[in-house]
């Protein structure tokens, strides 16, 4: 058997879910996330257009940047004209905005919410802290690079960035989606083991399934 095939087989295999007790293992799905290739080109373009025109963001304020999301809904910035709307459930939203620094405690929730979103899903990382830790670069409890834990489509720099820059970020994201380049979902699935290793390295009390469906 060729090495590639073995990898394939390995990917098909179920996850170990070692963090869970035996009792809990039956309650969580142990399916491994799969790469779902895009469908036929034209059709996919149409779908990408729709995805870009209807961005539902997860209303989950993970850091101080969450405060910048609120003005977007006001009459002054009016994000709804771009088809952007907040959505309370990760199941239904497609954009995840990491609102600033992510502490160790938050990254757990970020990973969980990210995995619960249905692909295609996009991540906008807001503020310097998500890029290199920002002013918290030497903190004992704040992670420095969010892209080691989940794939990021767009960074919006600043500490904090203004709502305008966030809107600009959204529009950049739309371009990427329309171009078919925003494929964080498949990237995550492909490099699943690497991401998982990074996550597990810092999260020591891993008490959730390896992939939160």
């Amino acid at each position, binding site marked *: 058997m060729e090495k590639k095939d073995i990898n394939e087989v390995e990917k098909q295999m179920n996850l170990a879910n070692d963090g869970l007790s035996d009792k809990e293992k039956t309650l969580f799905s142990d399916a491994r996330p799969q790469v779902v290739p895009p469908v036929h080109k034209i059709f996919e373009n149409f779908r990408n257009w*729709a*995805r870009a025109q*209807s961005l539902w963001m997860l209303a989950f304020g993970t850091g101080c940047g969450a405060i910048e999301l609120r003005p977007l809904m006001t009459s002054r910035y009016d994000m709804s*004209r771009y088809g952007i709307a*907040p959505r309370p459930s990760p199941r239904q939203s497609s954009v995840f905005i990491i609102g600033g620094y992510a502490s160790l405690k938050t990254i757990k929730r970020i990973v969980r919410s990210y995995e619960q979103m249905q*692909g295609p899903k996009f991540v906008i990382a807001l503020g310097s802290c998500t890029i290199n830790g920002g002013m918290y670069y030497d903190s004992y409890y704040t992670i420095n690079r969010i892209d080691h834990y989940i794939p990021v489509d767009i960074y919006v720099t600043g500490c904090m960035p203004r709502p305008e820059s966030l809107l600009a970020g959204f529009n950049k994201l739309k371009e990427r989606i329309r171009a078919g380049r925003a494929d964080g979902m498949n990237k995550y699935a492909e490099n699943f083991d690497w991401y998982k290793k990074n996550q597990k390295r810092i999260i020591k009390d891993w008490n959730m399934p390896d992939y939160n469906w």
Partner: protein
Amino acid sequence: MDIWTKIFYAVISVVIATIYGLALGGVVRKIYARVHGRYGPPVWQPFIDIIKTHAKRVAVSHGIMFYLGPVFRFAGGLGTYLFIPVIFGSAVFANFSMAGDLLLVMYFIFFGQLGMALGAGEGGHPYSPLGIARGLSQMTTFEVPFALSVIALAIQYHTLNITAIVAAQQGSILNWTLFTNPFAVVAAMISMLGMNMHSPFSIVLAPQEIPIGPPIEMNSSFLATLQTNRGLFVAAKLILFMNLYFGGATNLVVMIVKTFLIYMFSVFVGAAFPRFRPEQAMRFFLKWPTIIGIISIIFVAYL
């Protein structure tokens, strides 16, 4: 009429109603935005949303009932719509109203709600039953004034046949139930506020408190099905109200104008009032609208 023609007509009717209902949602969002001083989303935003939701690559399913829940819901909307004659005198829009009368329509509304409740229940998320519990209990209360108002209609027109009720309102604008029995209309319109789950009766979905309630686990095509149904169901309800209280419609344009105005009523109220707590909302329905409903019955039966 042979059955295939009937089905063909029904398909036309359903497609138009769905598009109309969804567009109505878009228009209302636009209006809201303009009132706020915003541009607002495009009118076709609901359609894009549906396409986008269908375009999700993976759908997470919790089981067979979860899978069927949205189907039930959509079937409920479809059925409700199909048992209502939409346009008075039109063969295309008569739907399957020969299968049953007003009672059938009123009970078929429950079909979708029950199915949805079951599907959401299998999702296993605690917010689903919470939302459903609220929704169902709110439903029990707003159905009371509505039922009283329908009974008043039955007394007034001596029939429960929707077509016959519409026929009785033809001729002059003064023949509308709105003018012949205003109490019944008031009671029914207030209960419609609850039915549409707009603010102040939006506790069922309550995005901040129990994130959108029942359909919280719904995703991908499941959600898209629900969204599609939403358009159709709103249209069906509006048409029902139009038929019962506002003289029905003899052509598509009249229908669109009338239903739009009826919908605007609930939009206006929704824009003007903050949300009730569950028990406040339910007590409200059991108080004033119910009393008005009883008055409407007394009005037609004993005066």
